[in-house]
């Protein structure tokens, strides 16, 4: 009889963030839907009350059903039967209960039977699902594909597919192929237009497709014969009811075992074009990816939450040398760092989700009416922020999920290495988070622009550094200001060389310096709203300060000519 929402005040804390007022006002179009839809809220408080109630349902299901099934799902996993995926028994039960609870189409508009929730509560639900069973989060979280359909498909397509998603049909995004992983420009799956009927047909192979046998798939395919780059790719919807794709095999993975990772064979599979031809990779995949990266951020935070709790409870109950091991400095330091990192990745996750919410909602409003000048400027501003924060939060959330699960296992000692405890599952599940939807290395490639163009620095100085901080915590702000100066100096030092390869070499260090500074500020600002975060702010900022010192020392002492020493043949 647990509840992953009510037992975790950190989630509610972020739901109560001041920017939510703006987001919800926009999302609900100033509460004009209350007459038309019986579920629509009449004001801001009513809307927040709805999110609160629905998240409580999610929390209850996650604790009492999904979490209880997690071990058996991890053991049993999905199977391929007659070219289709059969989920593990526990996964099927989880999905049944989630569907009965109406927890699909969470962010879709009401006219498609969605809940019309902002991204923030959607990610909160994702976090809880992942805390219970990270692999289920993959299947359930893929409903964000519907967001892309909502954004770019025709009204006819939206009416056809979106209510199905709201009713519980699952989705997939079919992007990667045997020879096109990080480099999606190399996608070869062939799309051919039958000129007479206007129907597209897909032929070829996709690989590493999460939930590849989902009901509704978004498929990236080469529609322009003779091309070899991104400009020849378009996006398609494939409906499983057409029964023209078979699952050749599913991968035997280290973690997220409940989630089927499929190799798919398309054989004259009928499909519908989404949006404009040739814009598949350039526009639509980027939108899909950004949404997915936020989802992985939520998944990472959920796994980290589960692992931290396991580590903490083990350290309290395990006695050695006549004392609970939590009393030893080596243990409590580890746990406090884990907690500070957990609070840190959660706060940047929801900061990013809010940025996405503001700009996406403006985007949809702009389809209904013309935005005024200020609104347009605001949409642009938040879009830019969303674009640079999304890779940064994905990088930190996934890397820290790995560090936190690693440390939590360490606290367990030898017991953690056995399957008697769930911690080994968390370690295995976390390991994919910094690989898929863009590896950490690729997040750095996306985030480094925010460093070199000075966008992070500008926001740090204009917004975070001007936030009101209690006098007794000013010392932390002083440290953060020094860190921002270090970011500026280190960036100048690297870019002054004028060699892009050299910038790439130091990119991760620079992005991390930005990350430590931003997360430190966010925790400090959180501490102003609730003092429980004061400890994490202090611990994280000092931890970040030391990391920044190490990075800047390395950069400063590095002779650009030494790059050659690192090159491998």
């Amino acid at each position, binding site marked *: *009889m647990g509840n992953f929402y009510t037992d975790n005040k950190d989630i509610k804390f972020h739901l109560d963030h001041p920017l939510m007022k703006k987001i919800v006002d926009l999302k609900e179009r100033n509460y004009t839907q209350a007459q038309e839809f*019986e*579920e629509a*809220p009449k004001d801001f408080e009513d809307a927040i*009350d*709805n999110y609160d*109630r*629905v998240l409580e*349902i999610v929390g*209850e*299901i996650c604790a009492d059903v999904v979490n209880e099934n997690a071990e058996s799902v991890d053991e049993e996993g999905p199977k391929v039967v007659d070219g289709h995926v059969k989920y593990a028994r526990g996964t099927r039960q989880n999905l049944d*209960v989630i569907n*009965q*609870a*109406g*927890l699909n189409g969470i962010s879709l508009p009401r006219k498609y*039977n969605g*809940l019309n929730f902002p991204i923030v509560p959607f990610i909160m639900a994702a976090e809880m699902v992942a805390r219970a069973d990270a692999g289920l989060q993959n299947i359930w979280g893929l409903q964000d594909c519907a967001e892309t359909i909502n954004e770019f498909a025709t009204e006819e397509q939206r009416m056809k597919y979106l209510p199905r998603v709201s009713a519980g049909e699952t989705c997939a995004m079919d992007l990667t192929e045997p020879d096109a992983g990080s480099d999606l420009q190399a996608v070869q799956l062939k799309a051919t237009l039958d000129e007479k009927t206007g129907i597209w047909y897909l032929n070829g192979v996709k690989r590493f497709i999460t939930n590849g046998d989902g009901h509704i798939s978004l498929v990236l395919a080469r529609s322009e014969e003779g091309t070899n780059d991104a400009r020849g790719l378009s996006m398609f919807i494939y409906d499983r009811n057409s029964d023209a794709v078979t699952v050749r095999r599913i991968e035997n993975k280290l973690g997220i075992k409940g989630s089927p990772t499929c190799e798919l064979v398309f054989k004259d599979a009928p499909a519908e074009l989404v949006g404009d031809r040739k814009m598949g990779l350039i526009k639509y995949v980027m939108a899909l990816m950004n949404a997915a990266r936020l989802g992985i951020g939520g998944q990472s935070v959920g796994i980290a939450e589960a692992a931290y709790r396991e580590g903490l409870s083990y350290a309290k109950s395990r006695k050695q040398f006549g004392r609970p091991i939590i009393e030893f400095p080596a243990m409590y330091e580890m746990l406090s760092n884990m907690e500070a990192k957990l609070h840190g990745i959660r706060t940047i996750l929801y900061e990013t989700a809010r940025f996405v919410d503001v700009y996406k909602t403006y985007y949809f409003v702009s389809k209904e009416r013309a935005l005024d000048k200020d609104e347009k400027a605001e949409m642009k501003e938040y879009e830019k922020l969303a674009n640079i924060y999304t890779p940064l939060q994905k990088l930190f959330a996934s890397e820290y999920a790995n560090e936190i699960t690693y440390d939590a296992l360490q606290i367990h000692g030898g017991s953690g290495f056995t399957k008697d405890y769930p911690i080994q599952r968390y370690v295995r599940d976390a390991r994919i988070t910094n690989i898929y939807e863009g590896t950490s290395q690729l997040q750095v490639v996306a985030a480094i622009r925010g460093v070199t163009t000075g966008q992070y620095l500008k926001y740090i100085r204009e917004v975070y550094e001007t936030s009101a901080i209690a006098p007794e915590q000013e010392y932390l702000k002083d440290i953060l200001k020094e860190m921002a100066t270090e970011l500026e100096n280190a960036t100048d030092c690297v870019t002054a060389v004028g060699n892009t390869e050299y910038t790439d070499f130091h990119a991760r260090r620079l992005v991390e310096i930005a990350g430590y500074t931003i997360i430190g500020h966010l925790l400090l600002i959180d501490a102003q709203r609730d003092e429980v975060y004061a400890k994490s702010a202090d611990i994280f900022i000092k931890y970040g300060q030391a990391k920044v010192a190490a990075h800047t020392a390395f950069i400063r002492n590095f002779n650009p000519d030494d790059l050659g020493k690192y090159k491998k043949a």
Partner: protein
Amino acid sequence: MKGLKIVVLAKQVPDTRNVGKDAMKADGTVNRAALPAIFNPEDLNALEQALRLKDRFEGSTVEILTMGPGRAAEIIREAMYRGADGGFLLSDRAFAGSDTLATSYAISCALKKLGYDLIICGRQAIDGDTAQVGPQVAEKLGLPQVTYTEEILKAEAGKLTIRRRLERGVESVECPVPCVITVNGSAAACRPRNAHRVMKYKNAKTPSEAQESNEDYLTMTSTRPYLKIHEWTVQNIETDPCQLGLFGSPTKVKNIENVVFQAKEAKVLKPNDEDIDAMMKELIVNHTIG
């Protein structure tokens, strides 16, 4: 079968499953303030059986009937979140102090007014553990009853086929409708609250609740009639006042004892086949297993 009018009898109870030190008062009565009020667990199993019939037979309705104080309307909303169509709260000072006999009398009077094809309730409530109200309601209404129901296997031609969970096995029985069935905790768990329904029904209120929150109840329930939770007092149903409340309750509580369970004896077994064999036999003989 055509649509059924199903009434689920439910009770709001103190959550006695996680009893702490302060659960009982010094005088031996339940300290209700220390225990959260919940939907009686087996009544949720009953609700699920009702909702499954509703899913199967188009046009069916599921309504909750509960007796209790004003706040018991919470469980009616809870049932609506999970799929019930609405509910009736039977609330009056005249019902106060009812034992099972007076409770089943009041409920059967309300049922006569309400009308029904099928009455479903939980086997027993976790605060009293009597398992008497369901069977008593059946007797008072002159209906057949099936207790310990685990699953309604079939429903056709005015007849239900029901699997009962008994102490040492299961049995399947047939029963004509209308009837009363009481559902066991081993039956399927109730479906969760549904997000859409929660948003739709969260403002459903009894007239008393609406009055407390100062709302324009008439306007609200005329535009959205599904938001009305019916509230019946003794005036709304036909009763014999002598059979109600404390007066109509022959049960007298003589004494309540606080019992603390503790292990009295321990037996040490050696890890060998003889001892394990002996233990197995002992457990089979005293029916702990087998």
